[in-house]
């Protein structure tokens, strides 16, 4: 197992390098030069040339890539001109906030998605199945940003149960209870779509498994029905559910961008959108590479979980 994890980590290196190349190439396609964007109305030819030299933009593309990569390997992601802070500081701070939001949603969607899917499959065509199927359909059809806005209208403005936006109260906030209070609505809004997807997939995976011969064997042995469903069947279904959880993690992370904007959650998604609109290239590059690399690592964890579950996977 240790060897397998090491192998997977080694294999992640070229993937992360590939990510840096893709990100770098895409950003290099940006028309116009960033110096003008940075300087705004101060963009005299002299100033532009100086900024370009400072940023190393006068060097050829390949050299620029390796300088950027080399600096990143040393923990230097460059300086964000729009925030006037080191990119890595901003990214770490913002990503931490995003993790609180997306992590909560991911746990919610995993737990409730699988639960709903299994119940739905076990009671196929029953009332619970129909109700869950309808709820799931609604969940995967509603744009999360719209759902968030409606939640604000209803739960924050009308009922005043939760704050309208933000991560902490402005005065005296910041403790755990306060964060949870602020977190509830955005985390739920973000979890809805992913829960729907997980529930759908769990249902069909369970239906597929429940028809297999080994389920009949379990029943022929006299295994209790509860254990047939939640033991034998769910365990086998997890083999196809787990990879989807890995993909869903990416979707939750992606959906967080909208939710952060709707609820003004100070996460990395909102920061990236702002950075794009302001053409803060180093911030965009650094943020994207950092988040994508974390996602690669997360997917390795998913694969390891999969190989622990399924002995047929060669490790």
């Amino acid at each position, binding site marked *: 197992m240790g060897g397998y994890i090491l192998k997977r980590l080694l294999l992640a290196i070229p*993937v992360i390098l*590939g990510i840096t190349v893709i990100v770098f190439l895409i950003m290099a396609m940006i028309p116009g030069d960033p110096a003008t964007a940075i300087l705004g109305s101060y963009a005299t030819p002299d100033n532009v040339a100086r900024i370009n030299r400072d940023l190393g933009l006068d060097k050829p593309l390949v050299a620029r890539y390796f300088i950027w990569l080399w600096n990143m390997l040393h923990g230097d992601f460059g300086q964000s001109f729009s925030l006037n802070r080191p990119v890595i500081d901003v990214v770490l701070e913002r990503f931490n906030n995003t993790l609180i939001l997306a992590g909560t949603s991911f746990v919610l969607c995993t737990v409730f998605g699988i639960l709903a899917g299994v119940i739905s499959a076990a009671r196929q065509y029953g009332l619970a199945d129909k109700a869950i199927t309808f709820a799931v359909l609604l969940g995967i059809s509603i744009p999360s940003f719209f759902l968030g806005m409606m939640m604000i209208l209803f739960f924050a403005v009308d009922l005043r149960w939760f704050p*309208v936006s933000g991560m902490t109260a402005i005065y005296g906030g910041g403790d755990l209870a306060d964060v949870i209070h602020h977190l509830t609505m955005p985390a739920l809004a973000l979890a809805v779509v992913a829960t729907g997807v997980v529930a759908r997939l769990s249902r069909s995976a369970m239906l597929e498994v429940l028809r297999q011969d080994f389920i*009949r064997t379990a029943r022929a042995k006299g295994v209790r029905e509860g254990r047939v469903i939640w033991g034998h069947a769910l365990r086998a279904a997890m083999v196809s559910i787990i990879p989807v959880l890995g993909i869903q993690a990416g979707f939750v992370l992606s959906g967080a961008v909208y939710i952060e*904007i709707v609820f003004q959650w100070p996460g990395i998604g909102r920061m990236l959108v702002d950075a*794009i609109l302001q053409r803060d290239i180093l911030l965009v590059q650094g943020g*994207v590479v950092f988040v994508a690399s974390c996602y690669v690592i997360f997917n390795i964890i998913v694969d390891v979980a999969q190989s622990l579950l399924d002995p047929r996977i060669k490790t």
Partner: protein
Amino acid sequence: MSAFFKLLARNRLALGGLIVMGLVVALALITPLLPLADPDATDTANRFLPPLSDGYLLGTDGLGRDLLSRLLWGTRLSLAVGFAAALFAAVAGAAVGIIAGFYGGRTDNIIMRGVDMLMAFPYILLALAIVAALGPGLVNALIAVSVVNIPFFARNIRGITVGLAHKEFVDAAKLAGMSNPRIILSEILPNVVPVIVIAMSTTIGWMILETAGLSFLGLGSQPPQADLGSMLGEARSALITNPHTSVIPGIMILIIVMSINLLGDGVRDALDPRLKSGALSRPMAATRVERKERPAPETSTDAILSLDDLHTQFHVKDRIYKAVSGVSLSVKPGECLGVIGESGSGKSVTALSIMGLVASPPGIITAGAARLEGRDMLSARFGELRRLRGRRVAYIFQDPLATLHPLYKVGDQLIEAISCHRAISKSEGRKKAIELLKSVRIPNPEERIDIYPHEMSGGMRQRVGIAMALANDPDVIIADEPTTALDVTVQAQILSLLSDLRRERGLAIIFITHDFGVVAQLCDRVAVMYAGRIVEEGPTMEILRAPAHPYTSRLIACVPELGEGKRKLEAIPGLPPSVDNLPAGCAFADRCLKAQDSCTKGEIGLEGSGSRAVRCLFPEPGFAEETA
């Protein structure tokens, strides 16, 4: 094609989706023809008018623009972009996937590494980066959304193609002289298209959400032009004061995406062949029993297990398959009863009906009784039935790889067979499991107990299956073709093991097979099944020596036997009848050389004298003489 639409129309939800979707699309198409206000004309005097205002059916937005007009034009835009993105991603992804999957090897490796690389991004990061590079704008958002979705299509289609490329019909096409591009176009593509359509129809909704999302962020359509997403984005600042400006486009997106999803599910269900047969429904814990009459009371016998006039049917759509119609049989302790017949004759359904293991839906037991020591198990409540399963009556199934759970260790599966009937400590369970493996002659049981089924050979797995059946010292074992999937040398080992176990433990065995050689070696009595009924029954050796039913004798004659050399076989022309359309009278009549008019006129009973019985008006001569 028309069958497809029929299936689609039968699905009421999908039909609803189709109608709503049709309306929305129609509305979007005729928008330019409608007498609407200019969607971009601002009128600051009439800002934020509520819906149903004079001249503004849905009110106005923050710049006084007519919301109805903007909604319809926005819908048009969102639909177009969503469909275009889905189409583009599907076509590009499918092309990449088919090429990678068909050619395999290095081509596959390189392409899939690239796909993996793209999938290593949370999709929005890639989309954001692309929009950042190309600049905000609706077309750029479309490109971004398509590109980030190509990998999903490519992966999905590649998987399907790999499966197809190894199908025998592709080999056949190669041998018919087809070149690779031709095989892709004429053999692979037609089989992949339904999958592409399914994938597309289930993702269009998602694409619309994604492009709307980018517009919502201000990265898609640019003012004054608006799609539904940017309408929502612009309205967000007035969410609390003028919620209608947000609610209206939001509801529209919801309606569109929901109807597309409903329709997409309908398309998927209509195109997925497994659903046509109803195979995707999951079997319940026990077979449904719907008997019109109480079964006749037990006539006392010394049988441990007896079936009395069992009828089991499968109700699929509007067809009724009479898999078993009126089977009666019994076994005494220590006796081995063979059940022989061709595939589809109802052997397995008979066996599975006994403990309620027939998949239901679609299976239903419609009449008869299955008695264990006189107690009808079909009347038993589920709890009682479950406690009898595996403890008094145990099963051995055909394919030992499919019938063992792939993710549990062999030992754990054995221990569970015991522990679901009586509490047993961990160490005792382990000891018992090792004993069981020993009793089925598995070498090094102490090591084998900790391995998984896929690490064993077929013969070893079947031994585990037998050990599991023996776990609770059952009275009856039902073995459903336990050696059919095995090689002859392994079959010989398994059969002699079963035979020894029966003698040592006084087991009653119902042994199902299609092989007369096996029956002859193992079974005391044999029942021959044809089209869901027993056509002949009696002591094995007598039946083999002098079969009474024409089917039995022809069947014995058409099987080549070792040692008879090269020769012409006595084939039986025709096919067994389909059990959803059984003829009146004798089901064998149209293949029988002795058939008379009377054979097809009404029921023919299973008549007999002494130990033998036959369902035929004109039994073979040998039998007639013997019983006369």
